């Protein structure tokens, strides 16, 4: 995931090793994992999560953050950090189809790609079997 031909376009953040895990799947399927920077809140205080998130957002100049859980500390931190950045997109509840759609959409602005990916990720869920 160190392909320098692929620009970083978003952060994927979450609990434990969620980001690294789902990013490894994105890379395995698409070879475009370098478009996402993994971020973990493991072992950090709320203040430190926000500080590190701000550092990563600034370093990579990104306006898109995907997180795992709406109530999670990464989501809280991302909302605080992105608050001052115009035209940003924060998507909580990210899934693999969503991230795959995002990394392939490198011809459109990242915020537009993120909004499209959100719809794709939501539509990609299905349930089979069980009683209706």
């Amino acid at each position, binding site marked *: 995931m160190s392909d320098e031909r692929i620009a970083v376009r978003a952060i994927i953040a979450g609990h434990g090793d969620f980001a690294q895990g789902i990013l490894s799947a994105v890379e395995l399927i698409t070879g475009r994992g370098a478009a996402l920077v993994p971020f973990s809140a493991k072992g950090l*205080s*709320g203040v*430190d999560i926000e500080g590190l998130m701000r550092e990563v957002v600034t370093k990579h100049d990104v306006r898109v953050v995907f997180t795992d859980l709406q*109530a999670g500390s990464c989501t*809280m931190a991302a909302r605080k950090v992105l608050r001052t950045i115009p035209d940003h997109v924060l998507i909580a509840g990210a899934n693999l189809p969503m991230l795959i759609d995002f990394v392939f959409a490198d011809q459109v602005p990242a915020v537009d790609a993120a909004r499209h990916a959100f719809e794709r990720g939501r539509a990609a869920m299905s349930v089979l079997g069980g009683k209706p």
Partner: protein
Amino acid sequence: VTLVINRIDDRLIHGQVVVGWGQPFDIAFIVLVNDEVAQSDWEQELYRMGTPPEMDLYFHSVADAVVALPKYREDKRNGILLTGDVASMHRLVKEAGVREVNIGGIHHRPDRRQRLRYVFLSPVEEDVLRDMEREGANVTARDVPSANAVDLKDVLSAEEAAR
């Protein structure tokens, strides 16, 4: 007792609180006690958006919480009392009769020493936690309900590297 836990957690509202404790205990409300958040409409909105719509969220400064806690204890629903630091909970122990304290998450800071995976404490905080027990509170550490509660004396004698 309708306040299921009185928790110290420097992340305040987050997954472990809302989901980890919220779902198994059918938590209907959270009382968030934090002077800074109590004065910030924006932060209150932030935390509301991170909480399921069926879960009520109430904000108080520490001073206000001392007065308001009896009302929450009479609530028939299950709730969580939440502070972001040891000092705030100490005041609720001394002035509002809190008798069970859960250390849920106090993370790394340069002046703190690691005691458990999710508990780092400064010498001052350790003294304050001991004082809570002298005041009659039972202080234990437990991040999620499925974990065993660790008594304060064991927390303070623990060295994370050896666990």
